[in-house]
């Protein structure tokens, strides 16, 4: 499971926004306001962001700078949101994306 870096030998303790709550697939998690959604998910140990449309294969962070779209999820009902560059806000509803939907494939 992944973690946050508490103190870095060169960067010290990094400034973060306020600790807020949001939900991932309906489950409440905490993250820092303003950090990328993907960072909060990684810190919580989430690896899979979505499953591909055709073969239902898992995908997660790859480039982390908003260029590859591997990390996209359904955020507040909107699909294809690049979680690695979208800032976290309190109360956000983040869901695993199945194809382009938040419904698991057998329910689509």
């Amino acid at each position, binding site marked *: 499971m992944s973690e946050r870096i508490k103190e870095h030998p060169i960067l010290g303790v990094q400034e973060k926004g306020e600790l807020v709550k949001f939900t991932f697939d309906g489950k409440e998690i905490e993250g820092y306001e303003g*950090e990328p959604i993907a*960072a909060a998910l990684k810190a919580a140990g989430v690896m899979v962001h979505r499953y591909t449309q055709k073969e239902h294969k898992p995908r997660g962070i790859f480039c982390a700078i908003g260029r590859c779209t591997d990390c996209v999820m359904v955020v507040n009902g909107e699909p294809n949101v690049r979680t690695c560059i979208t800032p976290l806000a309190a109360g956000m509803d983040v869901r695993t994306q199945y194809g382009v939907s938040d419904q698991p494939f057998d329910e689509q």
Partner: protein
Amino acid sequence: MKRYDLIIVGAGPSGLSAGIEAAKRGLKVAIFDENEKPGGQLFKQIHKFFGSKEHRAKVRGFVIGQQLLDEADEAGVEVVLNATVIGLYQDKEVVVKRGNEIEHFKGNAIVIATGAAENMVTFPGWTLPGVIGAGAAQTMMNLHGVLPGKKVLMLGSGNVGLVVSFQLEQCGCEVVALVDAAPRVGGYGVHAAKVARTGVPFYLSHTIVKAEGEECVTGVTIAEVDSKFQFIPGTEKHFDVDTICLAVGLSPMSQLLKMAGCKMEDNPKRGGQVPICDEYGRTSLPGVFVAGDVSGIEEASSAMIEGRMAGIAAAEYLGYIEKKDLDTELAALDLALDGLRQGMFAPKNRGKAIEQTEEGIAISQNLLLHGYVADEEIDRFPGVTHRSGVHPVIECTQNIPCNPCQDACKKGCISIGANITSLPIAVEGADCINCGMCVASCSGQAIFLVDEDCGDGTATVTLPYEFLPLPEEGTKGKGLGRDGKVICDAEVVSVKSLKAFDKTSLLTMRVPKEYATKARFFKAV
């Protein structure tokens, strides 16, 4: 439609540098950057840069980034963030996407400073969560403070692979292997050495067979490749990892230039599709300039100089300065740039197998194959001498343009000379006062202070230490050789962290004196 004298695309080191030079000469400048924060890749670079004082050597990348931002602010450059330039059209019209809006701007001159994107290699399992670009690891660790993983395999031994491997270790990740299909380490020997001495094994002439796991990476298999890069049966090696980092090269993001009609070429030495431009960044389109990695993969120090050149050239193009001033300024910058483009890793030497240093000393083959200089090779180099009392041992064994060590010593113990690619020499007869400044100032972490014989059967070795937790005085542990293997017992004599050392702590360990010339890292047990 808003018009600017100069529109720059990309607020990385080259774009910011171009903006600063242009704005200082009176141009109205806007820089558009698609990211939330400016600085390009600079803010992810936590290591000290190389070069000389004028190249901002010894300064950490993110500090240089902040310096550039402050200068840009002072010069009145407008930096527009979260603004993706999606088109460069006729008559230098720039189309920008901000949020869900499209805006049009006109520039009297344009500088494209969009940098480069990471390459990928594919292998079975490469799409699994856990396979990330090396840049992604940097972004996660250094910008967001999140661990990319616990056990990592790094693919790629160029400077990015080497530097990011060290950064991963600095935040507590275990790098289980550093792998490259090439037969030789691609990046600086000193970067490889600082990784190897912590115990990371190098596997040259190897590459990934497959990544394993169902929902995410749980393991990886590598195997040796022959001279035609075909797998050699029976050489498979397996590692349990949760992360695989790909550091397999960069490609210029030159699409805007191609779209605008610039003459382009496919140049493998420059990284791929690049605009054809002169040495000051002028493309085939009048008024359109380029700077930085987009015109050829190099590094941040040269990107900054190229940016400055492009900014000044744009100022002359628009009549803000005279041609004679342009020529003087560009000549000076050219000298600075040329100073960086020397030595073993100079663009002109790319692809060449260099056997000897400029001084005629045989390059350490072990360094190229395994990431560390072998015990029997180290004495060849002029930085390595033996004498009584504490003295600097400079294990810098390749010609790269870099000289902070010379300036660091107030007693003249280290000499490089006017040619900054020369190997540093440990000056005979110089009086070392054990201040530690050389150890802390070496961006390659290649300098040690050694007292080979304390008189009681022990020796002391002072090494640069950039990890947490800092061991306490008296801590007993092990001394590791250059190869990262445990070779002796060691005890911490002192750990010094002075402001002047800029976050490089100096760890002094006591080892049996027969290991004075071998022990180069400390591990607590």
